[in-house]
């Protein structure tokens, strides 16, 4: 393609010729050689074309086909504005929890329906690739694949890639060689530095439309805002020198100047919805139920933990990734129930991952686990449920625990509805309906009704605690979401002197996780450590042999979390200050 030179301004006299499709000739050649499909097929041919006609962005087409998405006017307004006024290039800077992902998916779907987007790339932090794929598939019917190999750049028109992977060769070169109709960058504040590899990678992509998603476009100084906007629309905030001269009011670059003019310019490229009072969710009330394990359970827990610590460190780095993962699973299962861990222990007695001596220990542990016929935590659960008439969602990570709890609860006369990932879709629908109709307990694994409307309940019981705090957040989010009008109760059951106790120490006491707005936790954990997951960090602390070492490591992790939260709070304040008038308050 040749570049338009200044002298080559498009001539207003030239007219645009209607180009006829080359396949018309085929039809003319084929027509009437055989009898047609009949008059009804002719009529339906015309209707098929008329039904699928596109007339600009006069109205949104995607809403009726979305699944499990509640229709909020602020999301619709954002979508219309980005499509019509910003012409597909925008920073979506809603405050956390207002649905930036839904807005981006909606915009993408509108383009896809119109045939304007046939190749799309979503760049996210590595930890969010799966979540994006799941949302695009289940809510928008968009067949995204997560980047696995270099061949995906060629064969996958809808691709999700971790930005850290995509920016490195050979991926970088392949991504730059392609022409993308739409590029979405999640957590786009990671593009704050124009000298960074991230920024240069995204700038080098050839794209028609681009959406940058971030709740905090300004993290430290005003440069970051300039860099983000320049990715979308270079010149929208003048040149860099002029921007600094005009819109930066302090030497450290943190204070904006000519703020109202700056906000006017930002309105052309940025949409920011913020929570109005009526849009704020009702409060969460957190109930912590610490449990003292029975002597048998305690012994099993300690013996198993000793085994995990020994195995974790014995080979000092020679242990395979699979064996490490297995140890994490064991430690998580024992935190759930003895029934969950018993089965895995049984399987591992035959596993080549462990040596003969270790297998012997595993066998002994299995026998110990099998000997335990009831768990104290279940009795506490029943005790709590008896104190309330409310419908409750009880979450566990494991099917074995679920089976055990179902028996316990049904014996106590509760109407229990079970819900797990193995149920076929109609059975899942039936389960949700049964719970709404007359069910008392919705006993669910992690697949607990993502996207399904469960706001008629308001009590969430975490029978066990996933080590990934985002999973805890997702559980609570099943009922604590837009549309919930009553106070939500979150009940956490956990045993003393276990990993889960550590988890509660960090998440509840240190960063008050249960008081955070949906979505804030992602941002806090995102600033904690980009390379290691929170689960890995927990395991590293827990497997330390000496109690004093563990306490010190836990304190360090706690301090890091507190710093991350403070940093997040400061950023939120800064963005509110700079972007105040760009924002629109979301009413009820």
């Amino acid at each position, binding site marked *: 393609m040749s570049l338009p030179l200044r002298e080559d301004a498009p001539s207003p006299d030239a007219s645009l010729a209607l180009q006829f499709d080359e396949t018309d000739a085929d039809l003319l050649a084929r027509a009437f050689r055989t009898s047609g499909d*009949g008059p009804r097929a002719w009529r*339906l041919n015309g209707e098929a074309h008329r039904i699928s006609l596109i*007339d600009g962005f006069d109205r949104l087409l995607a809403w009726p086909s979305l699944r499990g998405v509640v229709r909020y006017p602020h999301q619709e307004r954002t979508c219309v504005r980005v499509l019509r006024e910003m012409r597909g290039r925008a920073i979506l800077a809603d405050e956390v929890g207002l649905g930036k992902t839904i807005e981006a998916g909606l915009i993408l779907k509108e383009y896809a329906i119109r045939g304007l987007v046939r190749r799309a790339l979503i760049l996210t932090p590595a930890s969010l690739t799966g979540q994006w794929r799941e949302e695009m598939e289940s809510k928008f019917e968009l067949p995204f694949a997560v980047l696995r190999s270099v061949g995906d750049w060629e064969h996958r028109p809808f691709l999700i890639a971790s930005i850290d992977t995509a920016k490195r060769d050979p991926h970088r070169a392949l991504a730059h060689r392609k022409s993308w109709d739409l590029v979405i960058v999640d957590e786009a504040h990671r593009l704050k530095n124009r000298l960074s590899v991230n920024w240069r990678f995204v700038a080098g992509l050839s794209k028609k439309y681009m959406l940058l998603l971030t709740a905090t476009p300004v993290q430290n100084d005003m440069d970051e805002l300039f860099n983000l906007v320049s990715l979308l629309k*270079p010149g929208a905030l003048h040149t860099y020198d002029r921007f600094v001269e005009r819109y930066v009011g302090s030497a450290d670059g943190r204070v904006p100047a000519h703020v109202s003019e700056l906000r006017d310019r930002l309105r052309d490229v940025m949409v920011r919805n913020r929570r109005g009072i009526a849009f704020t969710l009702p409060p969460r009330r957190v109930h912590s139920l610490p449990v003292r394990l029975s002597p048998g359970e305690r012994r099993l827990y300690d013996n198993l933990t000793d085994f995990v610590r020994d195995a974790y460190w014995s080979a000092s780095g020679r242990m395979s990734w699979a064996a490490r993962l297995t140890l994490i699973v064991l430690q998580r299962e024992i935190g759930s129930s003895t029934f969950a861990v018993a089965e895995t222990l049984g399987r591992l007695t035959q596993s080549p991952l462990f040596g003969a001596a270790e297998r012997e220990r595993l066998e002994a542990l299995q026998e110990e686990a099998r000997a335990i016929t009831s768990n104290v935590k279940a009795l506490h659960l029943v005790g709590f449920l008896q104190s309330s008439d409310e419908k409750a969602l009880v979450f566990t990570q494991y099917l074995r625990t679920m089976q055990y709890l179902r028996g316990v609860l049904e014996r106590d006369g509760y109407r229990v509805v079970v819900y797990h990932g193995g149920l076929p879709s109609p059975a899942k629908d039936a389960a949700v309906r049964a719970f709404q109709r007359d069910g008392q307990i919705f006993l669910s694994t992690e697949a607990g009704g993502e996207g399904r409307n469960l706001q008629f309940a308001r009590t969430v019981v975490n029978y066990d605690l996933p080590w990934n705090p985002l999973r805890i957040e997702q559980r609570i989010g099943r009922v604590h979401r837009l549309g919930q009008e009553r106070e939500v109760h979150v009940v956490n059951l956990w045993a003393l002197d276990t990993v889960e106790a550590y988890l509660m120490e960090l998440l509840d006491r240190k960063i008050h996780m249960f008081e955070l707005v949906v979505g804030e936790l992602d941002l806090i954990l995102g600033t904690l450590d980009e390379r290691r997951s929170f689960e890995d960090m927990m395991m590293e602390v827990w497997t330390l042999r000496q109690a004093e070492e563990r306490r010190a490591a836990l304190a360090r992790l706690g301090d890091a979390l507190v710093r991350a939260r403070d940093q997040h709070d400061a950023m939120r304040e800064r963005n509110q200050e700079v972007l105040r008038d760009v924002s629109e308050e979301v009413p009820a």
Partner: protein
Amino acid sequence: MSEADALRRFVLDTLADLGATMSEAGPLVWIQVPERVRSDLEVSATFAITFDPERTGDFEAELVAPGSLFLERIVSLAASRGRWDVARFEAPGADWIERALSECGLGSERGVRCETEEIGETVLVLLSFRVSLVADEKRERFHLIAVSPTTGSAWEVDPVTADSGLIAIPDARVPPDLEAAYRLGTEKLRETSREAVDRFRSTSLHLLEEEVRRIFGYFDRTIEEIQAADPDGSHDLLRTVRGERDRRLAETLERFDPKARAALCAIRAIQVTTARIRLHLPGDVWADATLDAWSRRVRGVACVVCHGMEGPWILHEGGVCCARCRPTLAESARPRGRPRSDTPRRGTRDGRGSARSPRGSTARSRAASGRRRGP
């Protein structure tokens, strides 16, 4: 009919046309489809659909709504079928000529007398087109263009009424020259779409120009600032900035470059009764014309002002003018006292050479042929 009803009818009709059997059960419709269409629809032999997003997933029902994959597949299948068809239009009663003339303003109530010279048959070709205007947005229109290969004329048809009165016939004369009909149809389509295409182009180019100006402004000034800060500075940096500018410009051009495309969707041959008539207009003027029972368009009559051949017509000083030119006439003719033109009007005794034929000089009407005119 609401949009939702129209969508439902279209989907169920298409499935029925594909040989499916259906039974409705509340919000679900259970469908059984023959083997041959299962792979096109990506479904099993029996499946459920629903038009209610809330019921999606009940018995794994496929959602049918704008934007849903199932609708996309149904639309694609329906658009690949029914691409040609033959139909017949029976003249509705013996007085169809008189009624057709009245409808276009040339009825006996206006003092026009009609002499039927010949009743015959012809084949009209109906072409459906999808026009897509694409830049960074898309606008589409559906057009039906009818072509009369015998008279060499083409006109736009309202899709809503196009089917009315047509009877399917399994076998019929195939239009003699489909390609010629297609050429006439495409010319007509260009003409009818011109205004929309020009408007779209102008909007897109305006946006393109704005964007190009901004990009040049930003990068050129950035280069100036770099040079001012360090006159002997890095040439590599400047080269990088220029490279980035060129890449952005290419991206912008790709984004806003307007394209106008049309695709032929389907063809229908319509057998229809035709009449060759002579119209005697008030004022001792006559004109030869033809009309067919389906379109009821009088062909062979031209507007005295614009020479257009699209009715309806208004009698005007021994000739006819089209509805579009009527206001022009009202404004410009009498009140200003302009002298009458010396140019003889077509179809009058003095205007024998000026008659216009829809097929050009090779198909001149009797009015132009110099034969004896009517009373």
